């Protein structure tokens, strides 16, 4: 080891002792203390922190649920009912966990919307985006596995429908499905392995989240104006400024999720899942969790089994290549007068797909799903590359500080382009 290595010096000798042996103190100071955040970041930038907090909450509540849960087809449903009725605060653990999953998706969807609208996926943060999509995929897999565990009617038939998607693959499909289930249909072998995988995947997510955060810290966070930090004037330290801001967001989130957990814990639950699983009776409408409904709508919009499955998975896989489909160098949609509206249209369309995904696939709903499907893929394959090519973006501010200088100038009635802003003068002094 290099004896000339520079060791950070802290006031506290205990920290120094640790730092000399494992430079973890300086790492945390650099990544979570002095880490520069663009000072124009709004509350959209708190959703990464909220997602992390929710992930930890899900892992903790899940571990405590697992202490009382039995992954056997004869006992799973009853053990969940026992958690609800007899285990001390079991009802709270379960409602935190079930509603926490829904809120986890709400937060992550907002986080993704933020990344798309403000162009966070563009150079140099493409790998960061890819890791994020990967986390999203893992989340969907984990939530699906977890939804099977209570062994109600929706659990059973949801698992049946989703695992049957694999049987659409030519030649190997049936064999693959049987291998995944460990039986010819969803049964005890399936429940057992789903429980094991549902327990382990969140820790995999946690690991990928670590990479996701490490990757964003390399080039720093994006911001609503989508321009880089140029001077110290453009940023504030993560501690205390952003930590405090994230804490405010966390409090608001806590109020929202508590309202649901305590006053409407079954708002987002399906009534049929309080009926024990019955392999001989399919519920009239198999409804996916609302947060997976847009993809379910795409599956049902296609009148062909393999085609529907391919497009459904394609709808997620397409996200991986978004950084290369978008040819515009301007990150933030605030400066993209045309693409901005297509982007908003994409969000509305996704919402509409989710809505019809929860309703029967017939008549008008089917038509909406098909139009939505066309827009979804058209947005990625046609609109995104094409608009980036023809659009003339509006003028970007010179620096993040300049944004504020302009705002101040406009507010006091000035704002002529010839007048140098105070911030710009300050920059030159540095």
């Amino acid at each position, binding site marked *: 080891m290099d004896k000339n290595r520079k060791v950070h010096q802290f006031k506290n000798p205990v920290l120094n002792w640790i730092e000399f042996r494992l430079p973890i103190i300086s790492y945390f100071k650099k990544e979570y203390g002095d880490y520069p955040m663009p000072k124009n970041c709004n509350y959209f930038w708190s959703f990464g922190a909220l997602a992390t907090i929710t992930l930890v909450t899900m892992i903790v509540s899940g571990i405590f649920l697992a202490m009382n849960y039995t992954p056997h087809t004869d006992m799973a449903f009853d053990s969940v009912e026992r958690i609800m009725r007899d285990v001390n605060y079991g009802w709270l653990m379960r409602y935190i966990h079930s509603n926490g999953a829904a809120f986890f998706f709400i937060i992550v969807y907002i986080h993704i919307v933020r990344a798309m609208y403000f162009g966070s996926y563009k150079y140099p943060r493409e790998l960061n985006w890819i890791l994020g999509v990967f986390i999203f995929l893992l989340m969907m897999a984990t939530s699906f596995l977890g939804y099977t565990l209570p062994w109600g009617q929706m659990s059973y*038939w949801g698992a*049946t*429908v989703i*695992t*049957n*998607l694999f*049987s659409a693959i030519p030649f190997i499909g049936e064999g693959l499905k*049987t*291998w*995944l289930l*460990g*039986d*010819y*249909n969803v*049964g005890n*072998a399936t429940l057992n*392995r789903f429980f094991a995988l549902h327990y382990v995947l969140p820790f995999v997510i946690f690991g990928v989240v670590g990479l996701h955060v490490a990757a964003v810290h390399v080039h720093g966070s994006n911001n609503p104006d989508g321009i880089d930090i140029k001077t110290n004037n453009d940023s504030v330290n993560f501690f205390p400024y952003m930590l405090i801001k994230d804490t405010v967001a966390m409090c608001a989130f806590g109020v929202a999720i508590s309202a649901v957990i305590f006053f409407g814990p079954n708002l987002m639950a399906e009534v049929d899942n309080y009926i024990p699983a019955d*392999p*001989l*009776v*399919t519920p*009239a*409408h*198999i409804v996916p969790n609302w947060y997976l409904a847009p993809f379910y709508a795409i599956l*049902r919009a*296609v*009148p*062909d*089994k*393999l085609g*529907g499955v391919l497009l459904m998975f394609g709808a997620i896989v397409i996200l991986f290549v978004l950084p290369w489909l978008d040819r515009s160098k301007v990150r933030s949609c605030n400066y993209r007068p045309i693409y901005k509206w297509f982007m908003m249209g994409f969000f509305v369309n996704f919402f509409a797909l989710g809505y019809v995904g929860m309703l029967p*696939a*017939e008549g008008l709903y089917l038509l909406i799903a098909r139009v939505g499907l066309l827009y979804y893929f058209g947005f990625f394959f046609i609109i995104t590359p094409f608009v980036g090519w023809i659009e003339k973006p509006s003028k970007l501010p010179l620096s993040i500080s300049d944004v504020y200088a302009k705002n101040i100038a406009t507010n006091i009635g000035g704002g002529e382009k010839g007048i140098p802003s105070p911030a710009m003068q300050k920059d030159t002094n540095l």
Partner: protein
Amino acid sequence: MAKKPKNKRRDFLQLSTVTLGAVGTAAFIWPFLKSMSPAEDTLAAGSTEVDISAIEEGQSITIKWRGKPVFIKKRTKDEIDAAKMVQASDLRDPQDDADRVQKEEWLVLVGVCTHLGCVPLGQKVSDMKGEYDGWYCPCHGSHYDTSGRIRKGPAPKNLDVPPYTFLNDNTIKIG
């Protein structure tokens, strides 16, 4: 040049070591993958004998075989005629009614929709039977006819016919 044979020997050793390591790892992974396939007791799940003497014409019962629902239907004359009238070549999964039954009044089907595995409706009198008066899958709207053949909707295949034999006039052995 004198070094060359020595390098070759080292290259060979390195390559063979890495290869052996890779093969060993693959061999180590195999049992884990294989353990996820259906276990012996699952494979051995046996056959089921069903007493069909109480089934009236037009009536259909559901029994459980290897964890799956099996429909046994005693078809009416009209239903048999409707099934026979269809040209097999017009169907998505072409099959004559005669190839799907042993005795034409008795139709035995695995009651699992070939689309995504739901149990189609049509067993009860009050159920929706679809446009072809057979079975209708409520999940994604597949219609099956009185021979259990797919006629409309997303399912790619006809309802499966399980292996079965008539032990006598009143008993069917499924499996």
